[in-house]
């Protein structure tokens, strides 16, 4: 019998350390090229590799999805194992191991989604925190000019934090996260509103922030992200169509909002349009 090639050795070793079923079959002789190949490897050592690898993978995923883990409870480890079988780690950075979990939940969530219909959105929300924390982007802040004239209002627009992501969730995800963090049972009421959320990395602390957005704030940010808009454009396109009859009040609210967005680091300065 010809000796196994390096590639064959790597393939079988890799398979048996990451896949429990393959490991059992290998050591029972069903999948090994020969009994002697199985005998060359130490079963206990393979178990050790498997444990060390599994521990590292689970530890990373647990730390990124604490809410999902709490919700699923004692079956969480099985879910993670199934995820890793379906979406094996394909990136050098350990945290990236968790990147496709929201996709997994949407596609393979099955009974978990029946029990917790918001699970995919919760996973998305938890992943975003990590993704934005690590995003290879330098947040470029500029000076914020004072909007003290109609001219400045038309000439300048906000600089949006380059890490900012806004989401419109069908479920009240921030509230669900609060309940999970406080170990409280969350009872979903079907009549709850959709939630609009902003998730972004703070330019100074580098930590991720989550904010629930009003309809107005959501529209303003969405418009500012889509087009390089002046404050005047934003007012006309994102605020006025939803403002009802009191235009003066709408302008005041808009100015207060832009100031708040700047203070919180969602807007990181102004620029000439």
């Amino acid at each position: 019998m010809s000796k196994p090639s390096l590639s064959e050795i790597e393939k079988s070793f890799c398979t048996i350390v990451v896949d429990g079923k393959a490991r059992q079959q290998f050591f029972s002789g069903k999948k090994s090229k020969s009994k002697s190949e199985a005998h060359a490897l130490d079963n206990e050592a393979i178990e050790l590799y498997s444990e060390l690898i599994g521990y590292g993978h689970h530890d990373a995923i647990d730390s990124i999805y604490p809410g999902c883990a709490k919700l699923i409870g004692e079956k969480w480890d099985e879910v993670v194992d199934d995820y890793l079988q379906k979406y094996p780690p394909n990136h050098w950075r350990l945290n990236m191991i968790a990147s496709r979990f929201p996709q997994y939940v949407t596609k393979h969530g099955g009974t978990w989604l029946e029990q917790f219909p918001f699970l995919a959105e919760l996973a998305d929300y938890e992943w975003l925190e990590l993704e934005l924390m690590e995003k290879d982007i330098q947040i470029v802040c500029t000076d914020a000019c004072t909007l003290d004239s109609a001219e400045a209002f038309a000439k300048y627009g906000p600089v949006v934090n380059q890490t900012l992501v806004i989401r419109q969730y069908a479920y009240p995800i921030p509230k669900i996260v609060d309940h999970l963090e406080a170990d409280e049972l969350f009872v979903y009421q079907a009549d709850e509103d959709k939630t609009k959320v902003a998730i972004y990395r703070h330019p100074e602390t580098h930590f991720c922030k989550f904010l629930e957005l009003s309809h107005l704030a959501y529209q303003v940010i969405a418009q500012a992200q889509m087009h390089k808009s002046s404050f005047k454009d934003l007012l006309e396109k994102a605020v006025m169509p939803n403002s009802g009859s009191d235009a003066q009040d709408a302008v005041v609210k808009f100015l207060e909002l832009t100031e708040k967005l700047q203070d919180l680091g969602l807007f990181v300065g102004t620029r000439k349009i």
Partner: protein
Amino acid sequence: MSNQFLTLKNKLPDLGIGFGLRREIADETFEAKDKIDFLEFAPENYMEVGGNAKALLERAAEAFPLISHGLCLSIGSTDDLNNDYLKALKKTLDQANCAWASDHLCFASFNGVYVQDLLPLPFSKEAIEHVVKRIKTVQDYIERPFLLENISYYTSLPGAEMNEWQFISEILEKADCGLLLDVNNVYVNSVNHGFDPERFVDQIPLERVVQIHIAGHKKSKKTIIDTHGAPVVQAVYDLLEYTIGRVDVKGVMLERDQNFPNFDEIIVELEKIRNICDSNPGSKMDLKKCGTSKKAKSDVQAVSI
């Protein structure tokens, strides 16, 4: 067989006694600046990453000479070398001004799957040829000396045609690269696989050792596990002492990746390592110079487990 590496080695800076850059204990590490000569970082934690990680690496580069010690180059894998990885690695090495870069003699990925662990290679001629070719590519690409680290392994793979030291030696000579000698890994393997650790040290091309790792491990019933989560044991200090007098080494680094103790304990370990290096008459490391140097003054363009 080329010896160009040895010429390059002579030009490398003497870095002294180093420690690992870990986010969890970064503040204490920076505070102990006068006790630590250089820092080693895992490039995978910083490659193509912004925010806090980037800020941490920049802060570290301000305060210490940095060197990079990778985990996922996967030099022994039969997958193609990952060009995206190499590109990102080179960028990080340049940014951190690393005098040299290292990774492990292992495979860490197969068929595009990264296991996030260091898997052993069969001690075979085929593996040697394969690894040698790839080291040359890597060394050319990163434009700085490349070191391979001897790993801890818990089982031998089928197809061995020689022992570990023969395997390592042949690769180093044929690829003309350096060795990052992990004395804890030598000790762990010597116990798990039953050989004499000093004999191991005697058999490898010591002139190619640029850096030494020292770390703690955990004893389970049958096996010693290389955890980097415990204090260094005396037998490993002894092996460091045995080795240090025989090598012209450019840096000795204490690895601690988990189960972090009070930082004072780390300081004590670092001092013990320094004393061993200092008091050993054979040691060729210029420690006094290292203690005061702020940056690698390398004219050669300038890492954890």
